[in-house]
């Protein structure tokens, strides 16, 4: 029992911040994010999935949390269109960011869920198209199309270009 508990604590410590960031951009409310994370880590704790590597663990947690976010959005439609400027935490979230970075965050923030989720997983978390598709339970073709639409939408708003070469 002690080992299970310490593993759970280690997993929460290691992955909760990453999951919090992803889910907060989608759900836009810390209380809702807490509910989703509670459900996600509870699933990890009770289901005890067979995990082959740390990368697999991370992908498993992201997949479950994305499923929970999707259920949440379907049930609570109010979250789908709140702009970044209209939430209480705006100042805190953009604190220290350059104007360009704030603009970029705002653009990503204002995308709908379908486009936002692929942008977060592909451009921010660095997953491949196939990995992104698997996590979101969509086809690779659908993932590619959504990324294309996201790029088009963001470039329309952001003349200097959405992304930069590493």
């Amino acid at each position: 029992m002690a080992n299970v508990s310490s593993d759970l604590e280690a997993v929460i410590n290691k992955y909760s911040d990453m999951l919090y960031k992803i889910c907060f951009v989608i759900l836009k409310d810390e209380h809702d994010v807490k509910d989703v994370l509670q459900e996600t880590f509870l699933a990890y704790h009770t289901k005890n999935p067979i995990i082959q590597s740390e990368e697999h663990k991370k992908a498993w947690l992201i997949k479950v949390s994305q499923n929970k976010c999707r259920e949440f959005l379907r049930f609570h439609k109010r979250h789908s269109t709140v702009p970044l400027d209209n939430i209480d935490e705006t100042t805190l979230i953009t604190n220290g960011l350059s104007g360009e970075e704030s603009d970029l965050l705002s653009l990503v923030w204002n995308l709908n869920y379908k486009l936002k989720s692929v942008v977060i997983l592909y451009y921010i978390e660095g997953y491949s198209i196939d990995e992104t598709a698997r996590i979101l339970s969509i086809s690779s073709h659908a993932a590619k199309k959504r990324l294309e639409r996201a790029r088009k939408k963001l470039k329309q708003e952001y003349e200097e270009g959405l992304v930069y070469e590493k």
Partner: protein
Amino acid sequence: MRNSIDKRILSNIEISDQMKQDILEGCKEGARAGDIKFRYSTALMAVILVAAFSLTTVSVSAAVITFKQRLQGMSESEVAAYTTEVDKDTFVSLDEGFSRGLSKSEIERSLVLERKYYDDGIFPEKEMAHYKTNDERADDEVAYVEEDNMVYLPADDMSDDQLLQYIDHDAKKRYVNIQNLEAEGVEPGRGVALESTKVEEGSGESKAVDVAKKLIEKSYGVDIDDSYVVLVSYFGEEDDEEIPVYNLFIYQPGLGYGDEYNVRVKADDFSVMYSGCHNYKGEVKPLN
């Protein structure tokens, strides 16, 4: 070289130590999230579902009435057991919920047996066993075990009656899941729904359904009758579709090994953009 977005833009979005601690404590206690979306009051839901089923008036094909009559006969404790099972699902991957996959023989027999189940009202001699712990089940039976949320199948191929238990379990769980979703205002989607999308006569959806049925009959020689579930959804500009379309999924309810038809119909002129028939492996069946 690939494009990326600097994670720095999310650097101020951080989970607090207090929230981490709350989540850890909540998990240790097995506490569910505060939002009702994630909470099913098992006993209450069982009562609601049994009451809802008994009030439902049925006006569909005889086979569905027979299936619904079977469901209406479920006791409160049986509904509660399925609600618990649905409640514990994380929907990560179907494979994770079963001790093994079906063999080729089982898949072939299940396709015949599920038509007998859904269309002809042929049911198993007994229900699939539900146990709290793994110790309670025998190796050669088909059983759901609550402690690890797993359906255990015997090592050898299931008999026809065991397959019918498996089909029966899938149908009941799916139906309880659907009632939960509908109670929360969520429409059951592809692979879950047991009934076709309700469409108004003369609506765009209705016309799209007619186009799809005629196409499938012509291209595959299959008559889409009442035994099929026809799901139709409209996707317009708000869904990032450049061309508004009606998207249709058509299948017979079952374990998911049957063929599924996908048709996309343009909303402006009802011409067909895409049609295909996929088997459960995702392979495309050729046209007639």
